[in-house]
């Protein structure tokens, strides 16, 4: 499986993502700089990693969503390339309109950095295909703006279409309906606040994220 990782000024989880993808796929991920106007042909997955792209100016993910590379990522998504946005990557995907809703300041105001139990809410997408529905896995979160919000109609639609991929088991950041991750209509784009790339190998102490990447291997 060929993968690429987008890197913005201020990304800081790109290396973790690269290591996780290399570990699971056995192939070296391509690095895609934010000024690129095209995503290389032949990629199966583009990952938009966590961090503080462009210093989180204006709103988390707002500036990155307007960068040349995100137009290219949108085009790639339309071609059916899988796209994974984690943390700041999730914020960028919502700001870019690839996923609905918005990520606001955590309801408790504090930055939340801990391992959280999340429930697999739907196994309909390739990202969650290797999990059992309702299964609980522990994945770390580290964010200030992870409070997922959308209007009631959008939330109902996401739930009705089985597009809520992960939910927090218990309070985390105030997210509407405890939503931790959602997928696009075709299931090929996943945005999530928890960091699956930090739960891939024994050295991490957690391996709850590994199957997310393995699901993409088919």
């Amino acid at each position: 499986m060929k993968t690429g990782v987008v890197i913005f000024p201020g990304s800081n989880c790109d290396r973790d993502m690269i290591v996780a993808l290399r570990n699971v796929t056995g192939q070296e991920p391509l690095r895609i700089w934010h000024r690129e106007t095209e995503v290389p042909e032949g990629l199966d997955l583009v990952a938009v990693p966590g961090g503080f792209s462009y210093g989180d100016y204006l709103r988390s993910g707002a500036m990155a969503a307007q960068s040349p590379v995100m137009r290219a990522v949108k085009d790639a998504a339309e071609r059916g390339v899988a796209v994974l946005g984690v943390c700041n990557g999730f914020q960028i995907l919502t700001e870019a309109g690839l996923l609905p809703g918005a990520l606001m300041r955590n309801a408790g105001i504090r930055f939340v950095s801990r391992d959280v139990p999340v429930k697999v809410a739907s196994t309909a997408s390739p990202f969650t295909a290797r999990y059992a529905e309702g299964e609980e896995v522990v994945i770390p979160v580290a964010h200030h703006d992870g409070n997922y919000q959308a209007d009631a109609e959008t939330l109902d639609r996401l739930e009705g279409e089985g597009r809520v991929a992960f939910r927090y088991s218990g309070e985390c950041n105030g997210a509407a309906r405890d939503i931790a991750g959602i997928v696009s209509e075709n299931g090929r784009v996943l945005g999530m606040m928890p960091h699956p790339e930090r739960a891939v190998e024994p050295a991490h102490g957690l391996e709850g994220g590994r199957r997310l990447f393995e699901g993409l291997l088919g």
Partner: protein
Amino acid sequence: MKTRVYVTLKNGVLDPQGKAIHHALEGLGFAGVNDVRQGKLIELDHDESVSDEDLEAMCRKLLANTVIENFRIERSAA
């Protein structure tokens, strides 16, 4: 010319920062404040050729996230 764009959270959207400010004001002994909402003020210095429609488009595309925020445009000749 100058334009001010006020970006505020939509009604009903929880504003944790506003809540914290409110709490801090109470802590300082200021009574009678019923609610605090925090927003952004963005000042644009621009040519006259920039139309109201342009400003509206700027707000919708970038300055505000209309999923959670409202915006108000104040155009002045000064």
